[in-house]
């Protein structure tokens, strides 16, 4: 099993793409920075105006290009800067995640979290826990385009 | 004529496989297709037709041509290696054998396609005569003898015996390598089968389907036929017909970018596609009618005009089976009135 191999390989440093909405989660990430709450460096943030800007295509593209995990962070439901953007995100990503699981992709490679601007702590905790999950899952081989070897 | 009994086929395939990568019709997931033989491969020599044509072996759907690499501001270009491994294509039906004649006229003419040429030169074709033609078969229309399909070696499957006859030097060379497995055989069985097969073919619905060899001369009339509209209206513009066709050979060249590298590859394309051959931003054949007409004009008119009357169709009938809306070259030819349906 790939999973167990990766567990043993402690040097394995998964590549994680984090899409963060500008108003809550990106600010939350800034908050984590201001409070010096660390998280693994291989998590890289892409700023989007709202979590509803994240097209499932971007998520798949990241996996195709070799990301080991993709996390999408937005405002808490009800707190969307654009009133209802994250409600759409919630449906879109729910279905996408369900389908990825159905296709036999490891559950947990993709995650959606609601992180508010005030939750720098939560941002850092979420990122640490997600990185742990991905570490335990090992490298993404199932969705990767073989041409994109790192 | 030589022969080999079913009991020894496994040995035969192993021996052939030792001479090069052996492609043969095998059943995978309920479908028969050309597959690389390995121990345990479910060889199927009964199927009239493989789902995809042998074209895939010589002209794969996707092929890397070269790589660009950047190192800082320096750019280097690396050619991909030519596919020069020896291969054997076994169990190729008459129609598919003839498809090479069409493809050769395209790829081996100047400028020669090095990748196709390398594959072609390193391949020995072992054909398999038809004994159970299907209603969609119309190779006879193009004077292809399915019961004597040619290639480097011709084989016939009669009962449990596979009869073997080398036709070319390449074929003879291969035969010598596996001589030990082959026994002398009697032609009578083969002849009887050929006769029976021809009788069946005569009963099939497309037996009388012929294409007027003079149509290239009537290019303008055919081109302007009013019937194109009704025909093309029903076409979905998908590429199913193109991709299963053993003679369609259009491709697109594309780049795949990865960080500091670009892989340039070619991939099959179809003149039926909206985004085929973009010139000055758009496909010059803007309407479905024009694109639809192009494919059939090419097969029935332009290609023979440029290639001593050879139609770019071998009557394999795959498009008849695969078109989602049952449009196909037979329907088109008949509708155009270029068929001599006696």
């Amino acid at each position, binding site marked *: 099993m790939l999973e167990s191999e990766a567990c043993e390989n402690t040097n394995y440093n998964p590549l994680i793409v984090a899409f963060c909405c500008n*108003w809550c989660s990106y600010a939350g990430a*800034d908050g984590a920075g201001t409070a010096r709450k660390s998280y693994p460096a291989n998590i890289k943030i892409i700023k989007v105006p709202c979590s509803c800007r994240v097209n499932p295509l971007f998520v798949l593209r990241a996996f195709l290009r070799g990301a080991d995990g993709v996390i999408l962070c937005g405002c808490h439901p009800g707190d969307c*800067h654009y009133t209802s953007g994250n409600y759409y995100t919630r449906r879109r990503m729910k279905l996408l995640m369900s389908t990825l699981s159905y296709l036999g992709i490891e559950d947990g490679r993709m995650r959606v979290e609601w992180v508010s601007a005030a939750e720098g702590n939560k941002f*850092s905790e979420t990122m640490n826990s997600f990185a742990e999950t991905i570490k335990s899952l090992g490298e993404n081989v199932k969705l990767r385009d073989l041409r994109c070897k790192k | 004529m030589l022969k080999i009994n079913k009991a020894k086929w496994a040995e035969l395939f192993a021996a052939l496989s030792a001479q090069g990568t052996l492609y043969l019709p095998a059943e995978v997931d309920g479908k028969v297709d050309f597959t690389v033989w390995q121990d345990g491969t479910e060889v199927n020599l009964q199927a009239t037709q493989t789902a995809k044509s042998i074209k895939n072996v010589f002209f794969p759907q996707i092929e890397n041509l070269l790589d660009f690499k950047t190192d*800082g501001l320096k750019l280097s270009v690396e050619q991909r290696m030519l596919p020069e491994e020896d291969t054997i294509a076994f169990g190729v039906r008459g129609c598919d054998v003839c498809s090479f004649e069409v493809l050769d006229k395209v790829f081996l003419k100047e400028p020669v396609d090095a990748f196709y040429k390398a594959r072609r030169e390193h391949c020995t074709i072992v054909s398999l005569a038809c004994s159970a033609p299907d209603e969609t078969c119309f190779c006879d229309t193009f004077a292809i003898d399915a019961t004597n399909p040619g290639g480097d070696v011709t084989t016939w499957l009669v009962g449990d015996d596979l009869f073997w006859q080398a036709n070319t030097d390449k074929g003879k060379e291969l035969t010598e390598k596996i001589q030990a497995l082959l026994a002398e055989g009697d032609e009578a069985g083969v002849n009887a089968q050929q006769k029976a097969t021809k009788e069946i073919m005569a009963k099939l619905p497309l037996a009388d389907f012929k294409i007027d060899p003079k149509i290239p001369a009537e290019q303008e009339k055919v081109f302007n036929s009013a019937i194109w509209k009704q025909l093309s209206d029903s076409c979905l513009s998908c590429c199913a017909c193109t991709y299963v066709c053993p003679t369609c050979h259009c491709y697109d060249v594309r780049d795949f970018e990865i960080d500091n590298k670009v892989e340039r590859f070619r991939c099959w394309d179809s003149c039926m596609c909206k985004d085929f051959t973009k010139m000055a931003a758009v496909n010059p054949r803007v309407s479905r009618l024009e694109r639809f007409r192009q494919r059939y004009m090419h097969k029935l008119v332009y290609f023979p005009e440029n290639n001593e009357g050879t139609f770019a169709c071998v009557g394999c009938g795959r498009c008849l089976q695969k078109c989602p809306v049952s449009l196909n070259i037979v329907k088109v030819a008949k509708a155009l009135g270029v068929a001599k349906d006696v």
Partner: protein
Amino acid sequence: MQKIGVFVCWCGSNIAATVDVAKVIESVKAIPDVAFASDYRYMCSEGGQDLMQNAIREHGLTRVVVCACSPRMHEATFRKAAEAAGLNPFLLEIANIREQCSWVHKDKEVGTEKAIALAKAAIAKVRFNSPLQAGQSEVVKRALVIGGGIAGIQTALDIAEAGYKVDLVEKKPSIGGRMSQLDKTFPTLDCSACILTPKMVDVAAHPNVTIYTYSEIEKVSGYVGQFEVDIRKRARSVKADLCTGCGVCQDKCPSKKTPNEFNQGLDNRSAIYITFAQAVPKVPVIDREHCLKFQTGKCGICEKVCPSKAIDYTQEDEIITQKYGAIVLATGFETIDLTKFGEYQYGKSKDVITSLEFERLTNAAGPTEGHLQRMSDGKQPKHIVFVSCVGSRDVSGRGKEYCSKICCMYTAKQAMLTREKYPDTDVTVFYIDVRTPGKGFDEFYRRAVEEYNVHYIKGQVGKILEQGDHLLVYASDALSNSHISLEADMVVLATAIQPSQDAKKLATMLTASIDNNNFFTEAHAKLRPVESPTAGVFLSGVCQGPKDVPETVSQAGAAAVKVLGILSKDTLATNPCVASCNERICSGCLACENVCPYGAIGGEEKTVINLNGKREQRVVSVVNEALCQGCGACTVACPCGAMDLNGFSNKQITAEVDAIC
């Protein structure tokens, strides 16, 4: 090919300590279209900006990437600087290598590697940035203030004084808010009503102010400069223009069993009532739920007794739709619900009250006309225990984690006033800490202890039991590390305060964000404390966080100034990062229209040039750029990618993804 300039900021040692800036420069220089790369100690300084501007001019840069702090800090600064150098401001991107790199990673090698990756992602994105032109939208020269407490009143007055129209909306029948319920104010001990009432009168009388009491916000749409708000003016059942506020109706009203909200339910009021004597407007309102006329159809006494024929049972709610340039939230606070704090017997014993109830109890206009007496038997309490931090600084999950800030001071005030008025009453205060940072605050507290002999015990009250007509208070004494119990006649709970219930609803309507405790979030904790993250929406008073009166008033003034900053302009630059539809490929399915939160997209049958370059007529989506706020919901709903978002285009985001992976 682009000519990209990359500028890497040291931010003193903030970045440079964890990121090898030189190495970042070296890496980006190896990217073919990076034409210039340089580092600087403080890019945001004038010198840093000069460096960038000179490079833009000298090297003809077509795109700029600044690797520095969060774009939330200085994106605007750098874009402005780029614009001054002749580059379209939207051709600049920030790589956040401080908050999201140097501050969260310790290892220099790791930090440097990540900084390079972030720089590369920004470079990949900026290649596809397109020059954007901010449009202009008109400013409606009118402000809306939601909440008619001291915060709202002050903000409204300041805006009105500056010469702009302002509407003040209050949910209750009168303005005045919490401050009108207070007896005295610390540390000066002025009478709350005496200082508030003139303000109420001023605001009511001001020609630029329109007050909507007994009204609520129904709907908000639009954007800064152009908000459109529906205000539901609830039916008072009294014609305000005829009413003289004589009060005969409430005297004669036979239904007098409704708990009086103004007195925190300590006494009852009539169904038709004026909230309090100084109410503005001094017009009663019929509480239809408790009115006999409305409930049974029989009665109608108030109509008969009203000398000015002002009673109107047929009045209906009215929706007032008005446009505003800016909105101020001043929705104030309430005390938390104490049902989870069973140990204090609140609600079970009538003699356990909240400090706000205590305010009413000691107020001359309160239920006891200012006489301190027990609600159970009317006797004057001889020993009062004050408990501070009830539900504040509570990590048990029952209360609030934050400090309610005002309790220490008002508890000292209440204890001191009790001792002054009733010297024979013994007063004990249990506290966790006494926090008195404020002008004259600590002196005030010391007076309570030293001059008024209020017993302060550092410790928490664990349990209160009723014993006969006394209360037995069990507590810990943290200083002597002992358990104590003492008898009390009355216990006053310094109950935590929380934002008003309406905050959450309003936050959703206004798309202003709120924090975990439902306080409105400010745009920047330090530098933009009165602005919400939503342009044109400002915060005044406790709705943003616990505050006392003077702090509230100063923030109210600050919010007014921010509003004036908008109202004084004729037009505002609009956000050019809006959605745009490529009509050539738009199929007209209008999935985008369905998801747009702003109604900014609509379908139109249009003649468009199709993909073949031919004209054809079909339905396509059309974006109203003035309404679009740029969330991007439509771009994902669009299956064919016809809908894209300026500044965050499919290509830009894809390029970032590719660069990172």
